[in-house]
């Protein structure tokens, strides 16, 4: 019975943490869908956003800090579209990928110049005492984080389905030349995709920052997103969500049951093990878009 409760507890914790992985992966999906570019700078954007919030927080207060950071992330988006995409349209995908790598270094560098290299703590004011439901302990923080992640995903889905620019984004994701031929402006759509990825990075950065502190290792969070993307499929929003949840649960259960037998450390490899299995048996990922081919 204790085993069962333990397993339930681990699963719930895994799901909650997984939702935060989903959030990180979502940033990649947004840009990949709109422009077929793997944005290596997503981790750096997460770091940049989190550092801006914690850096501005003591100076101007929480909400202004948040607002200023949102403006900054939109600025990064416009900059990325101008400097990376506009000159490189029609170039090799690898060239654009390398350019995002360059953007990552620029973001990390400027963050370092502005805010320094010391780690910061971020207190969002969420009580630490867990909630206990039927003997199962659930972290209040993880619950709030998962709620925020879920809300953000819901807003994004509504944005994609109900707004004109959302339709433009999906059209560009499907066939950007055809989209251009009907007057959809690639530049604007790309800038919006980058801005959305920036906002997602901001949310992910704040939640992860509040959980583990804001420091430069945060940009490595991108590495957590890779297995999520492999599992879910890199061009799928639902894929990022489900992939994140799978990774979260796999990590929690792996650490809880297998880790205790062999002395821990299983958590860090679980995500990659699952991703490896998916690469073997389902290389498109769970929701990866296969080309529709009529026979």
């Amino acid at each position: 019975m204790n085993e069962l409760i333990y397993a339930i507890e681990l699963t719930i914790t895994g799901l909650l943490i997984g939702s935060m992985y989903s959030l990180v992966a979502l940033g990649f999906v947004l840009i990949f869908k709109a422009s077929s570019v793997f944005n290596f700078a997503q981790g750096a954007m997460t770091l940049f956003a989190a550092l801006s919030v914690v850096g501005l927080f003591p100076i101007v207060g929480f909400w202004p800090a948040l607002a200023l950071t949102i403006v900054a992330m939109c600025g990064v988006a416009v900059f990325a579209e101008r400097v990376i995409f506009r000159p490189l349209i029609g170039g090799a995908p690898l060239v654009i990928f390398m350019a995002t790598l360059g953007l990552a270094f620029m973001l990390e560098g400027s963050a370092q110049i502005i805010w320094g290299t010391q780690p910061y703590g971020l207190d969002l004011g969420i009580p630490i005492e867990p909630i206990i439901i039927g003997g199962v302990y659930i972290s209040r923080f993880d619950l709030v984080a998962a709620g925020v992640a879920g809300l953000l995903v819901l807003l994004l889905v509504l944005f994609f389905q109900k707004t004109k620019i959302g339709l433009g984004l999906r059209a560009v994701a499907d066939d950007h030349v055809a989209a251009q031929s009907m007057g959809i402006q690639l530049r604007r759509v790309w800038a919006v995709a980058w801005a959305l990825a920036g906002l997602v990075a901001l949310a992910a950065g704040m939640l992860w920052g509040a959980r583990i502190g804001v420091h430069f290792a945060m940009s490595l969070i991108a590495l957590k997103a890779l297995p999520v993307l492999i599992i879910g499929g890199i061009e799928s929003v639902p894929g990022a969500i489900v992939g994140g949840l799978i990774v979260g649960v796999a990590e929690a259960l792996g650490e809880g049951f297998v880790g205790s037998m062999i002395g821990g450390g299983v958590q860090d490899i679980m995500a990659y093990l699952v991703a490896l299995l998916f690469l073997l048996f389902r290389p498109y990922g769970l929701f990866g878009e296969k080309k529709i081919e009529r026979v």
Partner: protein
Amino acid sequence: MTSILEVKDIEVVYNRAIHVLKGVSLNVPEKGIAALLGGNGVGKSTTLKAISNLLKAERGAITHGDIRYKGESLLGWDPADIVRSGIFQVMEGRRLFQHLTVEENLRAGAYSRRVGDIKPDLERVYNYFPRLGERRAQKAGYLSGGEQQMAAIGRALMARPKVILLDEPSMGLAPILVTEIFEILRVLCEEENVSMLLAEQNAHMALSIVSEAYVMESGRIISQGATNELTKTDIVRKSYLGMTEEDNAHRAYRQILLQKRAAGPRGGTLRPTLGTKGRTT
């Protein structure tokens, strides 16, 4: 007849090296249809993309000449502005958004318009193409070839264009569907007051609905004129219509087959016909 769109002696170079169009001039008559005929790779699509300014994604550029729409030069315009001004291209291979529904595809067609309500336009398209109405919630990738072409044309109508550029609407369609599509184009031209420029390999079908035609070969216009004059020219009859001394294209094709059989696999100097029923072999 006055021209709504004039292409004046344009040259297009890809990658700063490959000279694709070597001076192409043509006129699209107001409220009429002009055809641009020619085989694969002669520069028909490039001509259309030059008009819509879609060459940049393929590293192409106009190096000489001018494109005038209602008397105004279009050179250097943003593709979106060209669409907004009333020129809409239906690209080769339909290029529907496969993962979007039929209705979303149509809505995307109206993207450049600033007005809010496009419901009447949707209804208008569903009136012309009832089958699209039945399948409005279906993903466009699952439509049949003919339905996809209809959706692509419907998508163009959503923008309320003045000129539609059509790149090989007959491609990959069964002959009966080709006839249907061309009939629709003719009706649209009359009822919606749009002008069209039709790039086609299927010269026989195209000439049945257009008033004037241009024949292209390796980046140049080699022959042009009103349709009835053009069908009399030898070069067009032989190369694109598959007509020989006899006027009946079908018989001519059978004649080729007979000649071929008589002369063995490499015999016969006549080229197989393009754009007639002979194409189905």
